[in-house]
């Protein structure tokens, strides 16, 4: 019955979405997008998707806001022109919405245990995870082992996006070319944000590590951990200035992080081949197949976390360096 609360959140979500499209101040639109992400994350949690809610909150409400704001700082903040072809677009959109609403009447009831999607492959995963992989979080087991090939593709997509942004916006000036260390970099002159930020950043990084390694026992995993650690270091860069942040994690190290993820992932796959199994088969990695699965999932989650951290931080530094 808790799904009733979902109705309230969904109504707020529709109102927020319409406000996002109608406002002409892009800053306001980005802030409202953060609120919409949080409402969607709340809804995901009500619909029993704990991992997805964590990812949406960390990535959508956290990193996405930072990226949009960095882009807005380099372009303009207000939307200048009026919309074009308004009547035609609205007609098309309304017609498509009506067709979609008509189609929803044929869908199975929400929560029906006999719906086709619940009886096809999902019971097999739920039965066989304790037998083959023996970790409590079924989503991590499916993500890491049963459907590990898809996750390999996803790591490569994240890597490609990082390379793409670096090609477009450049790696940024080398530290020697930055002007001399000034006293008013970052938010150094603002005592309270600086103090509380420095107090809170170690706990953010600790929480990111917790989420990374507890992905097998509860909601978590590499993607969420990478986003959380990246958010902590972005906070450090905002407070202490970019020079200090690049001194802590230099650009070469971030490039290494970016490449290390797919490398680790592919190596685990090839190690499976060399030890006698198939590509991305973790069972030969250890004498006991279940322990091999644990080891394999641990290694690839570490690879995923490292890549996501490196890519998100490289993208942030690329945007920040462009404005100089």
């Amino acid at each position: 019955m808790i799904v009733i609360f979902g109705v309230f959140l969904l109504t707020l979500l529709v109102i927020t979405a319409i406000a996002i499209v109608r406002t002409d101040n892009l800053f306001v639109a980005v802030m409202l997008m953060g609120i919409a992400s949080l409402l969607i994350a709340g809804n995901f949690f009500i619909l029993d998707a704990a991992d997805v809610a964590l990812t949406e909150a960390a990535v959508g409400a956290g990193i996405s806001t930072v990226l949009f704001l960095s882009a807005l700082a380099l372009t303009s903040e207000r939307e200048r022109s009026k919309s074009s072809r308004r009547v035609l677009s609205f007609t098309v959109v309304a017609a498509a919405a009506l067709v979609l609403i008509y189609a929803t009447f044929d869908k199975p009831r929400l929560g029906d245990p006999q719906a086709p999607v619940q009886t096809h492959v999902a019971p097999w995963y739920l039965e066989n995870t304790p037998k083959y992989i023996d970790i409590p979080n079924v989503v991590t087991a499916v993500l890491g082992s049963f459907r590990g090939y898809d996750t390999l593709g996803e790591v490569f997509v994240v890597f490609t996006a990082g390379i793409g942004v670096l090609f477009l916006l450049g790696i940024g000036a080398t530290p020697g070319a930055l002007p001399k260390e000034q006293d008013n970099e970052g938010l150094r002159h603002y005592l309270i944000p600086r103090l509380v930020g420095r107090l809170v950043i170690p706990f953010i990084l600790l929480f990111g590590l917790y989420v990374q390694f507890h992905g097998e026992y509860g909601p978590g995993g590499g993607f969420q951990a990478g986003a959380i650690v990246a958010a902590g270091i972005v906070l450090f860069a905002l407070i202490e200035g970019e020079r200090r942040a690049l001194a802590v994690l230099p650009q070469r190290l971030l490039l290494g992080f970016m490449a290390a993820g797919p490398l680790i992932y592919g190596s685990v796959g090839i190690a499976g081949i060399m030890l006698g199994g198939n590509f991305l088969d973790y069972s030969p990695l250890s004498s006991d197949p279940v322990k091999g699965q644990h080891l394999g999932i641990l290694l690839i989650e570490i690879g995923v976390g490292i890549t996501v951290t490196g890519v998100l931080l490289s993208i942030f530094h690329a945007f920040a360096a462009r404005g100089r």
Partner: protein
Amino acid sequence: MELLGLYHYWVFAILLMTGFYAVIAKLNLVKKLIGLSLFQAAVFLLYITMSKVDGGTAPIFSGAADAVFSNPLPQVLILTAIVVGISTTALGLGIVVRINEEYGSIEEDEIQEIDRR
């Protein structure tokens, strides 16, 4: 009870079309990217709504003998999709920043005007 599920799907349809309207009717490039983000979020909502089972909990074994679990497979797909969505949004924002540097504006009609000259 039926109405509850239908409400979720209707919100999906409205959210989808709101994002799509921002993509086709607005002229600002960043607004189009924001609309695309909304579009993706609506699709995520559809998949996760389909995965819910009555009386189920999150698919994490916690020692209870006969617990009912919600479907884990759409959750895996959407986990991947969220991260891919943010990667493509970041790439799109990089392109918008470069367009702004080359053309001096991020409004579609002004860019087409400059191109025509």
